[in-house]
């Protein structure tokens, strides 16, 4: 069955072709055809993934690697690249939740996009295309195919952010996302080229994961660090880390299902996936890992601080996503790859849930406001309040998601986030400061998420123009996915209950073979002769980080840190409760007493303005200089000059082309004269 892995990407691309080519017709006949095709394609992919997953579970841990070569893609000199897929615990896990969550969001989109007349097929085509690219990204067995998926998801992200492109702001947001991602991709591709040529110097011209990781010991530490950092540049753009995170909050201009699928659950975690996939490479460079951890922690704190004061419901969630991604990188950076991936998994559930919940709220608000012909902002939390009774299902599911992200014990976020925080402290790469930053960010997360819940669902209604009379629950296609996701958001954490809490941390054991540790060292099998140096290093890092620390480190410390982080989270919730339910004048007073800080946060630390001033303006000026100076004057001048010279010369030569036979005969005579001279010279000499 493993050799049927190509079925997973083929269904969405069929969906793309069918809906993309015939969608306009379907839209006229019956819109539900589009829905069936799009959702069915993803559902089939999901089913195939499930089958492969359970088949893989049946194998012993050290045999869970299968590489399927579909066809040769590029064959140029020493570069041989294949469209080949890799089945191992990591790719299967990613693929499982990508297709699973993707399916739910497809179903949700049916309800959410029902008001889009004549554009639905476009939306579903893009969504399917995204699924195709994302599946390629996670299943690829080489960096080049991964990069193809990486670019593909970027393209779909751009198309979907600017889905309502008739409004300029949305189109600009799409461009911003695309251009920011280009900067990151530039770093990524440089990293790939460096890796390729550096390994090539040793005669290993390949970008295939198993080959690369088997031969990483050939790389010098400096080169490994450079490769890791360049790849991480790609991650900062794709996974929205400092300094290239700026596109993600603006990406909320797209439809909410897109925000949920692409900008929360799947695409933005591809950077995390990439680093986890390259863990052996990263393990060679403690410096690069430190950079990853530091940037992750800073992003977590920084984005959370902005989230504290935002009023747009989706903006809050966007900054929360950036912050959570920061956590994931923090986990990766301290060597806890499995913990990072665990957080990717739980985050996919609860953040998709939160986004879909916010989408449900926006949908209701929009419908309600539409009824009373109000032009109030359907996404501004200041226009909400008291939705608890109007939209009960949304409220309950949203609350579950919030509890999960806030790290309340028992919900999924608690297990994964706590795991990362514990590793940030205890791992050999960790540091107390990293833990502290993470814990503070966790408190902030709890605060702003509950602020969101309180402002949206509690208190009396602030809905303007009497629209609250018209608010009601969303259709089934929207609420059912919410409930499914809420279930997983609640329980997904039990896959990785840590040892300290009496669990067996199954997800770690599941992923350990990919990380080069534990009983099933997959690359031993794939590579044949694995690099002893690199592998020993990786072993040391992981061993120390994951097992010895956990086993021999003080249990007490783990409990203590857990208690502290939970306390901080509860404190955040209590603060939100006080400020937004009990004494609602506090926020305003605070804003008035610290106007500078408030404005700073409200304007997102003025990062956009800073970039505008330091990067975009000079670049713009330079571009104009190039345009007016170099392009118009020199390059166009050369081209026009050449054209003018050719024109003048043609004007002269034109007279030869008179059309008179005898003139042509003269040309023949000229040729004869020259030829005869040539022959005689040759005969004489």
């Amino acid at each position, binding site marked *: 069955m493993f050799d049927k892995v190509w079925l997973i990407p083929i269904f969405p691309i069929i969906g793309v072709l069918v809906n993309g080519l015939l969608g306009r017709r379907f839209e006229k006949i019956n819109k539900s055809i589009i829905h069936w095709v799009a959702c069915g394609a993803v559902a089939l992919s999901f089913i195939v993934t499930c089958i492969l997953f359970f088949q893989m579970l049946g194998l012993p841990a050290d045999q869970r690697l299968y590489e399927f070569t579909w066809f040769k893609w590029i064959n140029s000199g020493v570069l041989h690249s294949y469209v080949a897929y890799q089945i191992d615990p990591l790719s299967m896990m990613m693929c499982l939740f990508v297709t699973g969550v993707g399916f739910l969001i497809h179903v949700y989109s049916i309800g959410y996009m029902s008001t889009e007349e004549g554009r639905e097929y476009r939306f579903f085509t893009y969504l399917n295309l995204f699924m195709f690219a994302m599946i390629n990204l996670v299943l690829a067995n080489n960096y080049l195919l991964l990069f193809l998926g990486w670019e593909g998801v970027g393209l779909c992200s751009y198309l979907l952010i600017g889905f309502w492109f008739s409004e300029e702001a949305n189109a600009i947001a799409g461009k911003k996302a695309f251009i920011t991602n280009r900067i990151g991709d530039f770093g990524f591709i440089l990293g790939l080229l460096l890796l390729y040529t550096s390994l090539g110097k040793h005669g290993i011209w390949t970008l295939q994961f198993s080959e690369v990781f088997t031969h990483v010991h050939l790389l010098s530490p400096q080169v490994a660090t450079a490769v890791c950092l360049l790849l991480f540049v790609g991650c900062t753009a794709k996974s929205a880390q400092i300094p290239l995170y700026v596109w993600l909050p603006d990406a909320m201009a797209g439809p909410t299902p897109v925000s949920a699928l692409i900008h929360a659950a799947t695409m933005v975690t591809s950077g995390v996936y990439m680093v986890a996939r390259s863990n052996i490479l990263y393990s060679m460079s403690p410096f690069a890992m430190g950079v990853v951890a530091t940037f992750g922690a800073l992003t977590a704190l920084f984005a959370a601080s902005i989230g504290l004061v935002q009023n747009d419901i989706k903006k809050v969630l966007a900054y929360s996503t950036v912050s959570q991604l920061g956590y994931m990188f923090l986990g990766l950076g301290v060597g806890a790859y499995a913990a990072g991936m665990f957080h990717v998994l739980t985050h996919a559930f609860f953040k998709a849930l939160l986004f879909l919940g916010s989408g449900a709220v926006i949908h209701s608000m929009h419908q309600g406001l539409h009824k009373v012909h109000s032009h109030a902002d359907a996404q501004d939390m200041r226009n909400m309040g008291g939705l608890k009774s109007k939209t009960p299902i949304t409220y309950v599911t949203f609350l579950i998601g919030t509890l999960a992200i806030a790290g309340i014990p028992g919900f999924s976020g608690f297990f994964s986030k706590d795991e990362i925080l514990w590793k940030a402290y205890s791992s050999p790469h960790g540091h107390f400061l990293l833990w502290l930053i993470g814990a503070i960010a966790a408190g902030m997360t709890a605060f702003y998420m509950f602020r969101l819940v309180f402002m949206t669902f509690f208190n009396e209604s602030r809905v303007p123009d009497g629209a609250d009379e018209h608010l009601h629950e969303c259709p089934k296609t929207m609420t059912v996915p919410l409930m499914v996701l809420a279930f997983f958001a609640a329980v997904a954490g039990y896959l990785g209950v840590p040892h300290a809490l009496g669990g067996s941390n199954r997800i770690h054991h599941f992923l350990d073979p990919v990380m080069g540790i534990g009983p099933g060292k997959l690359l031993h099998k794939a590579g044949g002769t694995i690099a002893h140096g690199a592998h020993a290093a990786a072993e040391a890092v992981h061993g120390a980080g994951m097992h010895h620390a956990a086993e021999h480190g003080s249990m007490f410390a783990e409990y203590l840190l857990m208690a502290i982080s939970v306390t901080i989270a509860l404190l955040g919730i209590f603060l939100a409760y006080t400020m937004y339910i009990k004494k609602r004048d506090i926020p305003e007073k605070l804003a008035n007493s610290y106007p500078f800080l408030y404005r700073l946060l409200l304007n997102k630390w003025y990062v956009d303005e800073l970039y505008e001033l330091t990067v975009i303006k000079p670049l713009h000026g330079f571009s104009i200089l190039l345009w007016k100076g170099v392009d118009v004057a020199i390059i166009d001048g050369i081209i026009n000059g050449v054209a003018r010279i050719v024109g003048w010369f043609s004007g002269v030569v034109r007279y030869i082309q*008179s059309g008179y036979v005898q003139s042509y005969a003269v040309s023949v*005579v000229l040729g004869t004269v020259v030829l005869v001279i040539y022959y005689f010279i040759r005969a004489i000499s």
Partner: protein
Amino acid sequence: MVAYHNLYLALAVVLFTIGAIGAITRRNAIVVFMCIEIMLGAVNLAFITFSRANQSVEGIFMVMFIMAVAAAEAAVGLAIFVLMYRKRGTINVESLNLMKW
């Protein structure tokens, strides 16, 4: 026996030049055609001279085929002149510049 081959060749060159001058200067298409025939005749003369000098019959056959080509050319060429005269009322090669695009 003395062979005056160079004289024959010189004669051929002179005839060729005369024919060529006529071909590029005269305006009447038929005269141009006749001048081309003179050029062909000059070439024929040269061929026969070479053929005899080299004690070979190949030149003679070449001349025969040139004559065949000339005859075919005469037939087609004169037919074209007739047609052209019917269509355009002239066979002055200077008033015909159809080859100019």
